[in-house]
């Protein structure tokens, strides 16, 4: 029997997930021994036409990382779905939307205005923005670019997904477990996130130093404090999202004195990661006075960017609401948008 075929593909992502595959190191040889990698644009010279030539369901599994932003990514997701028995959302971006998903605070027009016209480093006197169709004057030849969608979506908002490998990037241990589970045919029910279903605090090395009752008077950011390398970061006043985040990563960030930012997403019983993380942190604020607690919470400079860092497209609200009332971002240039952005992340200007 021939080896099962697998493919890797990337959509709107940074490439870190591809790194994570390479981070398998020697284990990668074991994987290659067991499977045939038939599609991996970042590393191997196979083309889209090679995938198109396959029979439906010919690949045992496809690992797709990255959020879905363009029409081309939609097409590739659909193609890989058709050709694969298992489609696995690989990494935070395809699982929950990831960092690219934060662009859902704006829309296409605002992004184009900012990136191609009004960013300080851009010189574009003619105001050229990407076009889907460009006719070249002399010979009438038309160039086509993929369409840039208004809203970022997760992979499972685009095509049906079988399993999720969470993380930014997914921890090597989880990748190995997932590959082994596929090869040994020991997969959990469809739709499962292939990681433990407990909060990160449960496996955190600083768990013992977490006080019974946390009470936050001051919320600090990592650069504002000299950290105790042994003590619970929340107890030190750092905004650590471990209590709301799925475990499975062995807390490498926390070991390096960086609070958890929540890349593995929620546990299975939580529907909206940001709301739950926000709820967890807000209830720890040590004040019963309305005005005082509002002041304490002002220390969280960017609530959406903090709590929905990896999960805005997968959230219940999905994107910034474009209501009948004018929004500070919608349909306006970067000038207005920048005002909004500055207000949104006031701390960044400090």
């Amino acid at each position, binding site marked *: 029997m021939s080896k099962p075929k697998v493919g890797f593909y990337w959509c709107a992502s940074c490439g870190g997930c591809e790194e994570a595959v390479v981070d398998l190191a020697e284990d990668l040889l074991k994987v290659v021994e067991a499977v045939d990698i038939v599609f991996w644009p970042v590393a191997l010279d196979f083309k889209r036409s090679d995938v198109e030539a396959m029979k439906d*369901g010919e690949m045992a599994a496809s690992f797709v990382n990255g959020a879905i932003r363009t029409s081309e990514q939609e097409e590739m997701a659909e193609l890989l779905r058709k050709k694969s028995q*298992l489609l696995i959302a690989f990494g935070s971006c395809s699982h929950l939307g990831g960092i690219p998903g934060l662009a859902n605070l704006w829309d296409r027009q605002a992004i184009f205005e900012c990136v191609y016209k009004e960013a300080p480093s851009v010189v574009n006197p003619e105001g050229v923005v990407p076009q889907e169709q460009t006719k070249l004057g002399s010979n009438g030849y038309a160039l086509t670019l993929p369409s840039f969608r208004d*809203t970022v979506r997760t992979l499972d908002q685009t095509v049906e997904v079988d399993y999720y490998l969470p993380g930014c990037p997914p921890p090597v241990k989880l990748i190995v477990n997932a590959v082994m589970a596929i090869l040994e*045919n020991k*997969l959990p029910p469809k739709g499962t996130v292939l990681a433990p279903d407990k909060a990160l605090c449960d496996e955190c090395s600083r768990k013992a130093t977490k006080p019974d009752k946390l009470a936050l008077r001051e919320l600090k950011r990592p650069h504002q404090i000299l950290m105790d390398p042994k003590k619970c970061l929340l107890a030190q006043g750092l905004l650590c999202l471990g209590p709301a985040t799925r475990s499975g990563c062995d807390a490498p960030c926390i070991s390096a004195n960086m609070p958890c930012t929540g890349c593995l997403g929620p546990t299975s019983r939580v529907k*909206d990661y940001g709301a739950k993380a926000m709820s967890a942190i807000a209830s720890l604020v040590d004040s019963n006075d309305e005005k005082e607690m509002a002041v304490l919470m002002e220390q969280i400079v960017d609530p959406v960017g903090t709590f929905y860092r990896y999960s805005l497209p997968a959230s*219940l609200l999905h994107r910034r609401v474009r209501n009948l009332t004018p929004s500070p971002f919608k349909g306006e240039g970067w000038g207005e948008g920048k005002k909004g952005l500055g207000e949104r992340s006031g701390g960044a200007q400090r």
Partner: protein
Amino acid sequence: MSKKSLDLTMKDPHPRPLSRSAGEGGRRPGEGPAWEPKIVAFFCTWCTYTAADLAGMSRMTYAPNARIVRFMCSGRVDPQFVLKAFQEGADGVLIGGCHPGDCHYQSGNYKALRRITLLKRLLKEMGIEPERLRLEWISASEGDRVQKVMNEMTAKIRQLGPLHVERPSPPAPLPSSRTGEECPQGGVRAKAEVQGGAR
């Protein structure tokens, strides 16, 4: 009942006209039937829900735009519930709890206050007017306050207009032929159905 069908996009188990005076206000040109504010109210059973009962028994009339959900405590109102209500078509969410110091569970209402304070900031960034979410302390004896808050909230939402939360359309389901039995590699996905319930 008038011939005009009312917009009841929020899944209501007992669909019925929301208001006898549905014709007033809210209508926008070309929008069909008049829009009525839809408010979801999360009331704590010990104070605000009892106050709403009292308002009813005292025959107080107030805007019929709220669907009341009874909770054991305002501290049980997870911000997820508020977002879910907005996602499902609510134009406003009202949370009612005991006055500070009066919580049946000692501190649930303070927890609600902390969460709602931060949630309002989050809503604002997400393009939803913070006024669409309101937290009120109403004790069991304040039936008149239920009446006042309900009327105020309905008027406020009427002024703000309808809320449109965009939802991603679900992906097309796989054709039925694509099931485990046909997998050339020996049914890698077939076992998926063995254990019940997603972990």
